[in-house]
C-alpha cells in the first residue's frame, strides 16, 4: 500500500504521532528561539547602554543607586522655589514623597506635593539618610554640548572626506587590477595573484617603519596624503572580492564586444561593470565603513593636527580629556557610530554577501 493511500484511509496512530511530533517541535522552536533572543539582547545591550548613558546627567552617573533610565532627582515647585523630593517614612508607618523646604540637622520641614495647602510637615530625623525618587528626563543638551566642545562638524567633514576619497581610489584601482587578473592571460599571473593574497598575512609593522620614515622625509606626515595615496594602488581583499565576482560573469558578451571592435577599457566599462554592479556597491560600502572606522592610520599620521583629524582620533582624545564625564564620551560614540550603522541597516544584504565571497568562495 502506498503512503498516499495510507494517508487517505486515515491511520489514527500516524495522526497522533504527527501531532505529538508537532507539539515536540513547537516546544523546541520556542526554547531555541527564546534562548537565542536572550543571547541577542545581552549581545546588543552595550548599544542600549551607550544610548542611555549619552543622555544622563553627570549627577546621575556618579550616584550609586540611580535608575537605569536617564533621570533626574524629582523636584517640586512651592511658593516660587524648587525643592528636592524625598521618600519620607512617617510615624503612621507609611512612606510618602514629600518636598524638603527647610533643612535641619535633627528635624526638617516638608511639604506634601499632593496637598500643598496643608502647609509644612515637620519630620524628626536627618534628611541626609532619606532616599530620593527619580523622574525620567533625558538630557538632550549633552549632544549640543559635545557638538560645541569638539568642533564636531569639522571632525565629521574630515571623516567623510577621507572615507569618500579613499573609497573612490580603492574602487577605481581594485576594479582595474581585478579585471586584469580575471580576464587576461599573462606570464606569471598565478604567481602574482598568490603574492597579492600573501600580503594579507604580512604584519603591518613590517612595512610601517620605512613607510612612516619616508613620509616624514617627504613632508607628508601631518597631511591626508599617507592615508589617501595608498588607496589608489589597490589592496588584496578588495581585488580578491572583485576578481571572484568577475570570474562568474560569462565571457560571451566580452567576446561579442571584442568582435565589434571594443577595446579592453570599453569592454570593462560597457560590458563587465554593468553586470558587476552589486559587487562594486559591496566594495564601496566596505571600504567606506572601513575608512570611517580607521583609527590607527589617522592616529599616527595626523597626531597633533587637530583640524585635520577624523572623528575616531578626536573621540579617543576626547575620552582621555573628559574621562570624568562618561555621558559626553557616549554622546561622541553615538554620533560616530550613527552613519556606519545606518549604512549597514540599509544595505545589510550587500555587506553579508561580500563577506561570504571573501571568506568562503574560491
Amino acid at each position, binding site marked *: 500500500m502506498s503512503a498516499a493511500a495510507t494517508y487517505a484511509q486515515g491511520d489514527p496512530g500516524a495522526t497522533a504521532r504527527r501531532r505529538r511530533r508537532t507539539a515536540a517541535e513547537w516546544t*523546541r522552536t520556542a526554547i*531555541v528561539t527564546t534562548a*537565542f533572543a536572550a*543571547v*541577542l539582547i545581552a549581545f*546588543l*545591550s*552595550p*548599544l542600549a547602554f*551607550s544610548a542611555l548613558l549619552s543622555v544622563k546627567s553627570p549627577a546621575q552617573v556618579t550616584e550609586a543607586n540611580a535608575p537605569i533610565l536617564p533621570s533626574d532627582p524629582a523636584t517640586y515647585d512651592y511658593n516660587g522655589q524648587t525643592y528636592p523630593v524625598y521618600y519620607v517614612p512617617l510615624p503612621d508607618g507609611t512612606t510618602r514623597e514629600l518636598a524638603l523646604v527647610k533643612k535641619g540637622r535633627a528635624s526638617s520641614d516638608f511639604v506634601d506635593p499632593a496637598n500643598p495647602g496643608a502647609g509644612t510637615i515637620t519630620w524628626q530625623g536627618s534628611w541626609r539618610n532619606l532616599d530620593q525618587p527619580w523622574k525620567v528626563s533625558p538630557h538632550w543638551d549633552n549632544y549640543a554640548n559635545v557638538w560645541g566642545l569638539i568642533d564636531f562638524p569639522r571632525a565629521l567633514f574630515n571623516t567623510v572626506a577621507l572615507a569618500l576619497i579613499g573609497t573612490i581610489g580603492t574602487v577605481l584601482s581594485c576594479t*582595474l587590477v581585478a*579585471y*586584469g587578473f580575471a*580576464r*587576461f*592571460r*599573462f606570464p*606569471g599571473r*598565478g604567481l*602574482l595573484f*598568490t603574492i597579492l593574497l600573501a*600580503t*594579507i*598575512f604580512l*604584519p603591518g*609593522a*613590517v*612595512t*610601517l*617603519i*620605512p613607510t*612612516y620614515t619616508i613620509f*616624514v622625509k617627504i613632508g607628508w606626515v601631518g597631511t591626508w596624503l599617507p592615508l589617501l595615496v*595608498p588607496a589608489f*594602488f*589597490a589592496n588584496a581583499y578588495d581585488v*580578491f572580492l572583485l576578481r571572484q565576482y568577475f570570474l562568474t560573469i560569462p565571457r560571451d558578451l566580452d567576446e561579442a564586444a571584442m568582435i565589434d571592435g571594443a577595446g579592453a577599457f570599453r569592454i570593462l566599462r560597457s560590458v563587465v561593470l554593468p553586470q558587476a554592479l552589486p559587487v562594486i556597491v559591496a566594495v564601496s560600502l566596505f571600504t567606506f565603513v572601513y575608512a570611517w*572606522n580607521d583609527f*590607527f592610520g589617522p592616529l599616527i599620521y595626523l597626531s597633533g593636527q587637530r583640524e585635520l583629524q577624523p572623528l575616531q582620533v578626536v*573621540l*579617543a582624545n576626547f*575620552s*582621555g580629556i573628559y574621562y570624568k564625564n562618561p555621558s559626553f*564620551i*557616549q554622546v*561622541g*560614540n553615538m554620533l*560616530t*557610530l550613527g552613519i*556606519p550603522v545606518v*549604512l*549597514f541597516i540599509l544595505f*545589510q544584504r550587500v*555587506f*553579508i554577501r561580500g*563577506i*561570504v565571497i571573501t*571568506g*568562503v568562495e*574560491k
Partner: protein
Amino acid sequence: MNQLPGATAALPRVRLRRLLRRSSRPMSPLARREARQGLLFISPWIVGFLAFTLFPMVATLAFTFLNITLAQETPLRFVGLDNYVRMLGDQHVWQSLGVTIRFAILWLPTSIIVPFVVALGLNSKYLRGAGIMRTLFFLPYVVPFVAGVLVWEQMLTDDGWINTFLNLIGVANPPSWLFDAGWIYPALVFIGIWGIGAGIVINLAGLRGIPTELYEAARIDGAGAWATLRNVTIPMMSPIIFYTLILGVVDVLQYFLVPLVLKNGTGEPAGSTNFYNLNLYQTFFTFQEMSYGATLAWFLFAITLFVTLVLFVLARGRVFYAGER
C-alpha cells in the same frame, strides 16, 4: 583550485614550475597583446606593491643592521647583529611576547568556537526570525572600534551593567574587570566577541554549503545530533575553521589597539596589557628608535610565518576539501 577556504589554502599549493612553464612557451602576437594589456591593468597594484610593501619590507630588514633613529644623534653606521643581541636580552620583549601568547590562548579558541556555535544556532530549523537575528548579530561589527571600546569600558566598570547582572544572579563579589590583572583578558575577550559578526556570516555560509544528502545519510545510519556534528558538520566545516584560525593567528599576534585605547598604552593593570605590538609601537613612535623597532617587527613577522607554517603542516590531512581534485 576550487577548495573552499578562499585566500589561505591556495598559498602552499602553488606549484612554481607550473607557474613558470607558460612563460617559456613562445607567444603569438595576439597573446602578447593580451599579456601587455593584462599587465597594464594590474600595474596599479604592482606599483603599490613595490612602493608600499616590497620596498618597505627590504628596508625594514636593512634597518635592523643599522642604528637609525628619527633624530639620528649618533652617525649612521652598520651595527651588525647588535639590535638582535639587544632584543634577545630585552626583558620587556619577552614579557610582552608572553602577554600576547597568554591572551592568544584565551582568545583564539573563543574567536573560533563562538561564531561557529552561533552560526549552528542560526542555521537551526527550530529558530524563528533567523534573518533578523543574523543582521542584529552582525551589527556591532560596523560600530567604530574606538566607540566600541569606550562603551565596553563603561559596561565593565565595577558597578557597570555586567557586574549589576552578576549581582542579580547571585554573584556576591563580581570581579574588577579592568583593574585586575587576572580578569583583564576575559574583559578583552568580551570586547573582541562584540566584533564576531563577520565570523558568524562566514560560518553560516559554510554550514549552508554542506550538501543535505550527507545529513540524510547520517540520519539513515542512525546518527544522533552529536554524531552528526562530529562526523558530518565539523569535517565539512574544517576548511572554514582553518581559514578563521589562520587569519585569527595573524591578527592576534598583532593585537594591541584595544588596550592602547582602553589603557592609554600604559600596560595597566600590572603590565598585563603590555602586548608585543604595543611595545613595538612605543619603541617606534614614543622612543623613535627605527632600527630597534624594525628588529622587533621582523621578529614578529618571523613568529607569524613560523606559526602559520606549522599550522599548515599540522592541517595537512586534517582539513577536508570537498572540491579537491
